[in-house]
């Protein structure tokens, strides 16, 4: 194993981790603001990939062009999910919330199965097949665009949370709901926005991964489980940490698989995840919530 191969595996891992990171950010936002785990998150991503595919197959839209469409449609879907399902169970016990997102997961997955059948489908992107060389290091243009898109989307979200009034209000609700209420912040509207943004992140991720990954009704699992690991690694509810966690997961996956056996790469991801939780139960970047 040469240093060049190892370095290549790290670069490949970062590229792959970029997408996991965006998924993790989406999951983390809801967890941070509302303490709700959205088990259906992978299914939002899957539906976003189908939307990308049908925009490609029907209207000839390149998966990258569909990013804003996906973001808007999924934002609306997120808000709708909150209004129709989540808002109603927020007053119930935590199990009601868990089961309702689990119910959503089953509904979304099998609705896709019924409507689209389990065929693998792939949108062809103009950028997916190119190769960018940096010396001996190589990345595909599809992955590079997905990575850059993921960083941009996460940066936009950071900016929103840090500098806008709504973003600040969201963080206030996340830190102390009662105090925020006392200050006249209306959590219900903010929760709806948080669900919208979280789903929009899945929408963007769905478009981005479509340039190199096929879609079928089970594809959500491919991204959801590493996404959850990244969320836990980064510190539950910490969107900044979730992004870093995603990158770590990507590198452990690819570099770990290359150094040992590729068959065990997912096991390595969860091993690292367990080790971190064992030593730092609040995650690598888990301190106070942001």
């Amino acid at each position, binding site marked *: 194993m040469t240093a060049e191969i190892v370095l290549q595996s790290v670069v490949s891992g970062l590229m792959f981790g970029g997408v996991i990171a965006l998924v993790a950010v989406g999951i983390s936002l809801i967890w941070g603001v509302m303490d709700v785990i959205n088990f259906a998150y992978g299914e939002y991503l899957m539906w976003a990939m189908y939307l990308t595919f049908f925009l490609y197959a029907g209207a000839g839209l390149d998966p990258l062009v569909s990013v804003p469409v996906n973001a808007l449609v999924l934002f609306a879907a997120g808000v709708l999910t909150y209004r129709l399902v989540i808002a109603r169970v927020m007053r119930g016990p935590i199990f009601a919330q868990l089961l309702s997102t689990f119910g959503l997961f089953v509904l979304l997955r099998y609705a896709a199965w019924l409507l689209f*059948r389990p065929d693998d489908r792939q949108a062809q992107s103009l950028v997916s097949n190119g190769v960018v060389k940096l010396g001996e290091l190589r990345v595909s243009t599809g992955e590079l665009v997905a990575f850059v898109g993921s960083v941009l989307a996460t940066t936009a979200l950071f900016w929103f949370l840090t500098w806008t009034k709504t973003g600040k209000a969201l963080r206030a609700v996340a830190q102390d709901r009662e105090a925020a209420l006392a200050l006249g912040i209306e959590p219900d509207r903010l929760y709806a926005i948080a669900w919208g943004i979280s789903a929009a992140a899945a929408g963007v991720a769905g478009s981005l991964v479509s340039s190199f990954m096929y879609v079928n009704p089970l594809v959500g699992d491919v991204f959801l489980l590493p996404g959850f690991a990244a969320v836990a690694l980064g510190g539950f509810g910490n969107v900044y940490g979730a992004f870093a966690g995603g990158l770590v997961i990507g590198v452990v996956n690819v570099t770990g698989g290359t150094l040992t056996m590729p068959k065990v790469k997912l096991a390595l991801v969860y091993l690292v995840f367990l080790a971190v939780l064992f030593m730092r139960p609040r995650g690598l970047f888990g301190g106070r919530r942001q």
Partner: protein
Amino acid sequence: MRGRVLGLVLAIIGVVAMGVMSIDAQAPKEVVIGVIIPLTGPAPGTGQDCKVGAEFAADMINGGVKVAAGSALLGAGWNGIPALGGAKLKLVFADSQASPEVGRAEAERLITTVKPSATMGAWHSGVTVAIAPVIERYRIPHTTVSTATELTQRGFQYLFRVGVNAHQGGEVLFQYLDWVARDGKKWNKLGQLHEDTAAGVNFANAIEEMAKARGITPALRVPYSREQANMDSEILKLKSAAIDVLVQTSYTSDGIIIRKTMRKLDYAPALIFSQGGFDDDPKFYEAMGDDANFGSKRQLWSPALSTSKPILKAINDEFRRRNGRDMNDNSVRYFTNVQVIADAINRARSAEPSAIQKAMVGTDLKAEQVLLVHGVKFDEKHDNVLAKAMVAQVLDRQLKIVFPAEAATAKPVWPIPAWSTR
């Protein structure tokens, strides 16, 4: 009004009576054959090829393919099953979705609802492993082209393998390697990359066994699970081990990701050899374009063999006229499945599953009676003793026979050119 109602009642009675009579009649009007294949899921293109191949054969046996008449093909010139008074073959399809669980449930549903005289399928070895006990329990003769060697090692009485098993399919690789070595072409390390269900694992085991028997030590084996978005570590592993003869078993979607990753990471071994799967699926060629070129696979059919079997070209032309594409290994193998079953029914002179099973044991079809490169004759385990393969290489996005020399339609490109030179 009353007259009309009376007429309707009489008509219904008539129809019912005809139905009852036909059940009672000695020779059935049609014989139902169940076909379990992956019509949806990760390999719908493959399932579609199997479907049109089987339908084409059934149409020939039912008298609908005129170009076959006068040839030696089994079923050519027939107008239904001769020994059953011209009973027509009727195919009923079930979708395995490439899933062992779905395949097993569908096999059971098919057998209990449409009561087929025989069944075939399920293409994916992993699915065939799951449905074999079902067809054995219901005692339905079943033909398969799945390659997993273990299928015929469990003493099943009703399962018959029409195509090659993993060993027969792997044999041609070593013959080919010997042949290219005589031509002065060199290679150093044999490695394997395979999906981790029955087809991939069995073929990899067979290759390892055969390599060791020839004094070749396999250098690396990389199994992988199919559902994943990133295959970089798999390819980096092969690249860093400098594997230059790569044996690959993949289905379509994973095969596409693997080939793209090979290109990205600049990994081009001297030979990529597969047992079919991704490189038989038209979707692989659509997605990969010229990057599909230069891979090799074990091949069981070629219309170019028409110098020895003139009917192959005529049959392929007719198939292309109907379906807009050439026959491939999948359509040809399912064509042969139907022929084998039709032959057994005809010799059994019965549509009863147990009688068909007994007749099928005695199957003896010569190579000129089928489209495959080999004939069909079963040993005591119901493996086809005549099964053998050729080697085809993808050149100009088409499979061309490169070995054995007497069947070759192109010279092999060895080694596969580096990505940077394409």
